[in-house]
């Protein structure tokens, strides 16, 4: 098991944060949120990975066969469901932002300040 997946996960997270901070378009910004979340997928799968192991499906394989950790895979699935909910809600808000503000630029959303 190498250290690369962890570096990749960290990199994806930093890039996502950077994108959110610099974004000039709400749709781009929301996709950056899901980029940050992708970092958690990579991290979770990396943690459950084992060298020379199969998928954790024990049909036609000896129950003692080496398999990757199924727990993190189910955590990742839950995480995907959470992301779908959050991104759907955010995109719906972005649609309304275009209707009300006539723009997708977060810098022009200026109803609240101070």
């Amino acid at each position, binding site marked *: 098991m190498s250290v690369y997946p962890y570096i990749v*996960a960290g990199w994806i*997270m930093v890039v996502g*944060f950077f994108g*959110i*901070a*610099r*974004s000039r378009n*709400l749709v781009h*910004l*929301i996709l950056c*949120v899901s980029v*940050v*979340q992708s*970092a*958690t997928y990579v*991290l*979770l799968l990396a*943690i459950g990975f084992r060298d020379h192991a199969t998928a954790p499906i024990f049909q036609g394989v000896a129950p003692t066969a080496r398999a990757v950790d199924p*727990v*993190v895979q189910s*955590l990742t699935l*839950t*995480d995907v469901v*959470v992301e779908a*909910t*959050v991104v759907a*809600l*955010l995109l719906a*808000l*972005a649609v*309304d*932002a275009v209707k*009300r*503000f006539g723009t997708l630029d*977060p*810098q022009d*959303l*200026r*109803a*609240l*300040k*101070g």
Partner: protein
Amino acid sequence: MAVAPLAIVVPILAACLLIAGGKHVPRRLADLVALGAAAATAVLCAILLGRVWHGHLEVYWFGGWHPRPHGIALGIDLAVEPIGAGAATLAAVLMTAALLYSQRYFEAVAPFFHGLMLVFLAGMVGFALSGDLFNMFVFFELMSVPAYALTGYKVEERGPLQGALGFAITNSLGAFLTLSGIALLYGPTGALNLAQIGASLAGHHPDALVIVAFVLVITGFLVKAAAVPFHFWLADAHATAPVPVCVLFSGIMVQLGLLGVARVYWTVFSGQPALHAPALVHTLLALGVVTALVGGVMAFLERHLKRLLAFSTISHTGMFLAGIALLHAHGTAGVALFVAAHGLTKGALFMVIGITSHRLGSVDEVELHGRGRGLWATGSLFIVGALALASLPPFGAFAGKSLIEEAASGRGFHWIAPVFVLGSALAAGAILRAGLGIFLGLGEARPPAMEQEAEAETETPETKGSVSRTPAVMLVPATLLLAGGLALGLIPHIDAAFERAAVRFQDRAAYAAQVLHGHATALPSAHVTSGPATSSYLYGAAAVIGAVAFALAALYLPRVRGRVTVLSRAGTGAARLMRAWHSGHIGDYATWLAVGVVILGWSLGAAIP
């Protein structure tokens, strides 16, 4: 019997029924079903609280998946102890009151409003009771997503849209950091159960990875708890969410973030040698104190009543965080009592603002000045609530705060009590200023700090209809909540009960023994406390006097002061800087979040032996 899972299932089932029924459910029926489900949840949570009140711990394993011998937990559990059960009860009580209140508050309400509120409640109850770290994350998301949707409920307006976007993005980022932390903990320990991760870390040698995991996990919870510099979303979300939703946000949701921090620290990390206790105490204490002061100052600079209350919530949350940071049973007990009293009082204050906007059609302090003279019942609730928040002895907030002060001086932090006085005086002084100006017509319409800030808040009133009378269903819940918040401090030996709960909450070994091995340990002995010290009464009185002084100064000083002094110019400049810092821009909020993580990690990591 299995009461704990029922407290989560009942609101979810009712929500499913209401959402499936959709437009076919008449408004009255939807009100009744939602109210019934929330009240039933409150009763279930109160039963749980009654069972564990004396410091017991009740564990429920889903599907009967009890731990294997030698304490290997494969199943998922709810672990009910007094503080978690108390938080769940507070959430359900506030939800019941808010639903009662919203019967008249909203004229037209879509059926999914009730559904969202009930799912929100289920998420909060589950979060408070969960004994499993990953389930804490799931319930955290379950309470967050309905909260985003409820903030943007009036999505046809600009403010709510922006408030919901900022809230959803910052809190989601926080939740992802929490999840990364959970993953990093699962790596070395192979466990997700709080007790089991704790047991496994307690044997480990000091480890930098654990610090990183701790920082990531608590960051998500601190975003929810609105600690500086993660606090920006809170004021935007509160200013724009409907009033019944604000009751829940300020009253319990924000404080659940702190429950998360305290829960993972005590059950998981308190046995790990790498997490250097003095560094943790200083870091969290600094965050708490800065949050208390920033919240107080921002509340004082605000004229939009809902934002004003939101900043006062930030200020109080800072005090709660400081109390938890002391890592002392007195402090934790004080925070629990303070949170309960604050939740009830702040809920009542939001309802009063809702009534004011219902009757007078505005939430702007300057516009409302002197127009509330006829509303004596509403006005007296508002002013009593402000004084109670300033920790007027001997009521609930005072009882909680005095316990925290005791813990602080016991740990040698004698400067905390005066800082708390300043924070409460600022936040409560702002509320009092608004109350005295609106309901008694005292002083000048425009307090000095806001002269430059005549931004026009275009906001349609949330309510319509009878403006000649305040409906009883709006006034009664507010009165009951406020009375509850006051009464908490008058119950004899309440501090001993909270103390016992706190000792139980902080006992990692006893928690693990019962969750993993089923061994119930001896109950913590009840401390006989002598009640608040004389110095606490003095601090309480000082905060109340300070609040009154700040309020009167803001109302009357502009009349006295003839010319612009250097001091006042510097003050206005600083005020403008503070307000500019809260820019409303999502990119800035994300940047501050990243900065906050780095600060937390650096200050905790620097202490690795």
